[in-house]
């Protein structure tokens, strides 16, 4: 099924899917696992283990009584060395459980297939699994799936667009585990009472489209939608529009238009979890970038340090100048290789000097390329100006809060202005003013 529907704007970014044919390799157990107690959007978890405790694979080591949160499980068996703040991929320090592994990978007794016979049990099981959005945002899945009684969800959209350059983690899931994907979709459909499923895949991945169309033929409720390859096609609002024709209004959620969006890896995980009961303790990560000796896809235990992952991929050809967690458009630049892989890590990229340094900024020539590129119909040049002047009124007037920070504007700017960076600043300024009770 091919939809001609397509969001306005965006950018043509290089694909760089160098690892698309790299079958996922299992990586072994690290000597030490550093597992942050915050691997999701929401409240951080409180540790349930202490120094000296012996933990097993799949054991809950952190949990929270807040609704928007997800429990953290141990990915290894071993002894807790300490519970202390450690550097987190986001550049801040987060309370983490450090485990000296014993390599036995002894599985915790609590790991057993969950009971999922009705939607209530399903949501409980999803929460227990520790699942967060695996597309990169890391929003707790049980929160997303908890639909208020007054909302009716009729469509499940599966995000396999993977519009970020380099990353092939979603693609490999389809190629390697398409039956798991379908099985996970069926579980969600059945337990959520959803009638219609659309799997969105960009047209630069014909093999994935072919594979998915083949396995989806088993159900007339599941359809594959071929999407135009244009960044940010995988952004939630753009994807919903391309697949269903519905537009999520500013400040609203997909469920306000009757849609739930899940990443292809997330549904596949649900299928796996239903079978084994093993919570989210590992993640497929695409390792790439000019400095990496052997670009590949690796199944990494959560808590493994970036350094060990890169070493596993043959180390570096030359010392990288910039290391990213995530893709080059929205990924987070890392301070150190000591940070660890977390639940929503989908790629690790090591860039050499030329790629690392951004060109210097010059004056805005008002060419309006940013306005044309913005998929949200914003005016990035005005937001940039307003943010730098700290003009809160104008920031609001130009809808600063609607920016999805996809980076298309910065990417196309001929003056190389750091538009998204100032828009982030603008959001912070507006947020701060609101917190102070200002206008």
């Amino acid at each position, binding site marked *: 099924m091919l939809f001609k529907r397509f969001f306005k704007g965006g950018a*043509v970014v290089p694909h760089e899917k160098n690892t698309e044919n790299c079958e996922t390799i299992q990586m072994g157990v690290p000597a030490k696992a550093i597992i942050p107690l915050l691997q999701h959007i929401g409240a951080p978890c409180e540790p349930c283990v202490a120094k000296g405790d012996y933990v097993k694979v799949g054991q809950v080591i952190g949990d929270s009584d807040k609704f928007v949160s997800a429990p953290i499980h141990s990915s290894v068996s071993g002894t807790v060395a300490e519970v202390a703040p450690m550097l987190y991929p986001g550049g801040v320090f987060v309370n983490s459980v450090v485990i000296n592994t014993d390599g036995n990978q002894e599985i915790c007794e609590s790991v057993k297939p969950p009971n999922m016979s009705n939607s209530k049990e399903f949501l409980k099981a999803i929460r227990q699994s520790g699942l967060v959005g695996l597309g990169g945002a890391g929003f707790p899945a049980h929160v997303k799936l908890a639909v208020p009684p007054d909302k009716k969800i009729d469509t499940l959209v599966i995000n396999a667009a993977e519009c970020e350059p380099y990353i092939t983690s979603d693609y490999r899931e389809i190629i390697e585990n398409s039956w798991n994907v379908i099985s996970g979709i069926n579980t969600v459909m059945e337990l959520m009472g959803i009638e219609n499923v659309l799997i969105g895949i960009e047209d630069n991945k014909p093999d994935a489209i072919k594979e998915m169309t083949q396995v989806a033929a088993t159900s007339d409720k599941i359809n594959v939608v071929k999407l135009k390859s244009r960044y940010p096609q995988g952004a939630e609002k753009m994807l919903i529009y391309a697949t269903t024709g519905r537009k999520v209004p500013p400040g609203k959620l997909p469920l306000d238009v009757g849609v739930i969006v899940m990443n292809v890896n997330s549904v596949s995980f649900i299928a796996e979890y239903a079978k084994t009961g093993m919570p989210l303790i590992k993640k497929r990560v695409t390792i790439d970038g000019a400095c990496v000796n052997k670009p590949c896809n690796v199944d990494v235990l959560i808590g493994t340090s970036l350094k060990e992952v890169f070493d596993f991929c043959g180390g570096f050809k030359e010392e*990288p100048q910039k290391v990213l967690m995530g893709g080059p*458009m929205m990924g987070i630049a890392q301070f150190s290789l000591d940070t660890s892989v977390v639940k929503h890590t989908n790629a690790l990229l090591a860039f050499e000097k030329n790629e690392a340094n951004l060109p210097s900024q010059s004056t805005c020539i008002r060419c309006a390329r940013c306005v044309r590129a913005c998929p949200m119909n914003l005016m990035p040049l005005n937001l940039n100006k307003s943010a730098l002047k700290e003009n809160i009124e104008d920031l609001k007037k130009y809808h600063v809060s609607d920016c999805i920070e996809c980076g298309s504007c910065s990417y196309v700017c001929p003056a190389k202005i750091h538009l998204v*960076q100032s828009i982030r600043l603008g959001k912070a300024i507006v947020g701060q003013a609101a917190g102070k009770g200002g206008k």
Partner: protein
Amino acid sequence: MENKFVVSSSPHIRDNASSRRIMIDVVIALLPAAAAGVYFFGPRALAVILATVFSCVVSEYITRRVMKRESTINDFSAVVTGLLLALNLPPTIPIWIAAIGGAIAIVIVKQMFGGLGQNFMNPALAARVILLVSYTEHMTNWVNPRGIDAISTATPLEIAKSGALDAVSSATSAYTEANIPSYAQLFIGQVGGSIGEISALALLLGAAYLLVRKVIGFQIPLTYIGTTALFVWIFGGTSPFTGDFIYHVLAGGLILGAFYMATDYATCPVTNKGRIIMGLGCGILTGIIRLYTNYPEGVSFAIILMNIAVPLIDRYIVPKSFGGEKKVA
């Protein structure tokens, strides 16, 4: 921490577009029109072009130097301004006036308002208008292009203004007798006028290049030319709906203005809606000036007047965010 990585806010990649490349594209697009001007008016036209370009670049260099700011002559924007100014001048213009024009454009209109992207009026057009009111005689001294051996040395629009257009039938023989250029002559550029405005063919060639390279959009040129044509068609004839709009589109600086001047980034709105308003405004003003004022040509004034309205347009035309167009069902 043993590693010292570059840490920056995403995105971490940029495309290879640059302001300089955009300016070079505009220069490339203007070359056919400049070549046509030199072909029809001879080396004199080339001298004018070189004078304005040189004057603009030197003015830019000196002004930035005096203001103790980084030199910007490498971005090619001064070359664009110089070229555009020359194309808007008559080929007979004394070189020193052309040079003054370049200095006015860069120093007063562009750099004094903050330089590239900050000026509120198109520098080349503002300079042309200042020259027009300061040296009216020199600025309206037209010569015939190569291959035309007529007594009259008026521009096609001056001919139209004189009423000659209304007096004759559209038969070609009658046109020739009254010294009115044919559509073909207007299209090729075999008419009197400014160096760069005469050849519609050359201008359209360059415009196509700019459109393909996505340096400009079609919104402003299309609405501008369309509105002027419609206006002239309705009001420009002896009775309503008989105006010779093809003549008015091809004659004068409309094509040059619509594709190259009204689309100037710094002085046109950034949204598509705003750009359509800009085109409509320019079109109506050009029609009014051409038909109802003492000036035969209205493109420069129309664009400059709309330039002034651009901040206002950009202030009020703020698009709704994606999904905000309609109320939630």
